[in-house]
């Protein structure tokens, strides 16, 4: 009995010391976190809350008073100029870029992953494919806008030299959308390749050896080993690329200015337009909230799918 008591006492005594030591550490930890909390709070969390607040108000950004209008801004969205054109353009753009980037990225990663005789240095090739990702979206927009120019852009010059009809890339409905999708794929596919290559390198080589012993050919090995093993990388790439596409502003805007008509006006361009040209903060904020919701939903899907997969394996 006496023994247990002393032991309890000593544990208590140690605990007390331990707590004060822990408390010191906690205080130090909080001090370490303060700069991050202040900066993220002020410049990320606060604007996030404010944009939701603005979306329930009618305000032009200048007048002293803001009128609370409830859900009126959201209800007015469908009747704002070109809303459905914007929804269509944003959907086509996001879907088109994501599909193309993931398919091209996957094929390119498979090709770039193979090493051996008769092949060019892989590190060098990977750098070549990643290179366009280094350029700013604004810069990529300028380059492609010049290339697409009708009368003297390089693409039409080449078409003419091959006796083909030049295309009015920047002023034809439907074609301009393809033009901005191609430019986006060009500038973003490198990122996707890097993630796919990291995934490919994590597949154990034994799987391929075992399959080869069992007599599986290259096609079977790709279909039955590579693609299933790459499922997490494919999920990540599909979702991060679609988030990138929904967020993209300067690249498509520089190329097409949202023209012709409303055919390439994306959600981000409408936010900028209502916020800084039309000065209708209510509608602009409602559109911003719409964008934030879309991106949050995609991120949640990503989280759920990846979690589920971790449970299975």
């Amino acid at each position, binding site marked *: 009995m006496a023994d247990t008591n002393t032991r309890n006492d000593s544990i208590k005594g140690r605990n007390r010391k331990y707590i004060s030591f822990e408390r010191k*550490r*906690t205080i*130090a*930890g909080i001090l*370490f*976190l303060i*700069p*991050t909390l202040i*900066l*993220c709070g*002020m*410049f*990320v*969390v*606060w604007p*996030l809350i*404010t*944009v939701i607040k*603005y979306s329930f108000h009618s305000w032009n*950004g200048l007048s002293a008073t803001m009128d609370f209008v409830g859900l009126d801004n959201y209800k007015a969205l469908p009747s704002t100029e070109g809303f459905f054109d914007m929804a269509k353009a944003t959907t086509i753009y996001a879907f088109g870029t994501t599909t193309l980037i993931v398919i091209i990225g996957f094929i390119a990663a498979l*090709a770039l992953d*193979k090493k051996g*005789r*008769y*092949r*060019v240095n892989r590190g060098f*090739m*990977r*750098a*070549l494919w*990643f*290179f*366009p990702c*280094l350029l*700013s*979206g*604004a810069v990529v927009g*300028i*380059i492609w806008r010049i290339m697409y120019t009708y009368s*003297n852009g*390089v693409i039409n*010059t080449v078409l003419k030299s091959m006796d083909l009809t030049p295309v009015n890339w920047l002023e034809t409905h439907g074609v301009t959308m393809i033009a901005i999708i191609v430019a986006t794929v*060009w500038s973003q596919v490198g990122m996707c390749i*890097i*993630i796919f290559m990291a995934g490919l390198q994590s597949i154990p080589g034994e799987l391929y050896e075992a399959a080869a012993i069992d007599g599986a050919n290259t096609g079977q090995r790709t279909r039955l080993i590579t693609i299933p093993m790459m499922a997490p990388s494919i999920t*990540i790439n599909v979702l991060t690329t679609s*988030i990138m596409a929904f*967020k993209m*502003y300067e690249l498509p805007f520089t190329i097409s200015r949202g023209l012709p008509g409303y055919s390439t006006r994306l959600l981000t361009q409408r*936010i*900028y337009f209502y*916020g*800084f040209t039309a000065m209708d*903060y209510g509608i602009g904020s409602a559109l*911003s909230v719409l*964008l*934030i919701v879309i*991106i*949050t939903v995609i*991120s949640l899907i990503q989280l759920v799918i990846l979690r589920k997969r971790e449970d299975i394996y």
Partner: protein
Amino acid sequence: MVKKKAALTILSEVFLLLATAILWIPIYYFFIGAFKTRTDIVNFPLAIKPSMITLDNFVYTFTKMKFFSALKNTGIITVVALVAIVVFASMAGFAIARIDRKLFKFIYSALITLMVIPFIGTVIPLVVQSVEIKTYNTLLGGILIQVGWNLPFAVFLYTGFMRGIPKEMEESAYIDGCSMYRMYAQIFLPLLAPVTATCLIRCGIGIWNDYLVSKSILNDAVTPTLMVTIHSFFGERRTEYGYAFAGIIAASLPIVMTFVSFQKYFIKGLVAGAVKG
């Protein structure tokens, strides 16, 4: 069999090289275009001869575009923001990785969640805010926003890295009476070089290439940044392709040089952010 395999390898390699060549046409086009006159760019877009080479585009860019004042602004924003990001994020990551408390776990999850938010979704209140706190059109305004928006990712990087450092090392230091502050400065900071390289490269490229923050917060002629300057310059002189190309090369050079020298860290940083974020 062996011969057939070699032939297939060479064939697939030829396809890959062809695709790579197509991918590089735009880069080749603007790179050689920067050294040609407008007439040559239009008439011979993909050709270059020694007789065509001229440096006029660069001379024009450097003298007429206010290139150096824009370079200075971008440089200041990038350097100051990166220093702040590295210092604050390593401190925060240290606290989160080393203190096993619910509060810190909650803060970490909250910060990670912020990585999802798109900047353009909050640009309207940010402009209003920067006018209110008088940082509109000042470099400080741009720096603060860049730091705030890059910190969640940086904290994520540092926390992940520090969780991998064995605890035994600091336990012995604590027994010897080392404080949390000394622990951070003398034991952790020197170990952080790899993750700091990753963080600098990843955040640096984003800040250097940024267009949207500068466009909305620093849109005056007083504090233009490189990307905004080139963009608006191109908008004014839409037909002078050579000037635009020269400006693009000059403005992208620092990023390209960093990429060439630190490719390993570059790729590592990209994978780290994408796979776990």
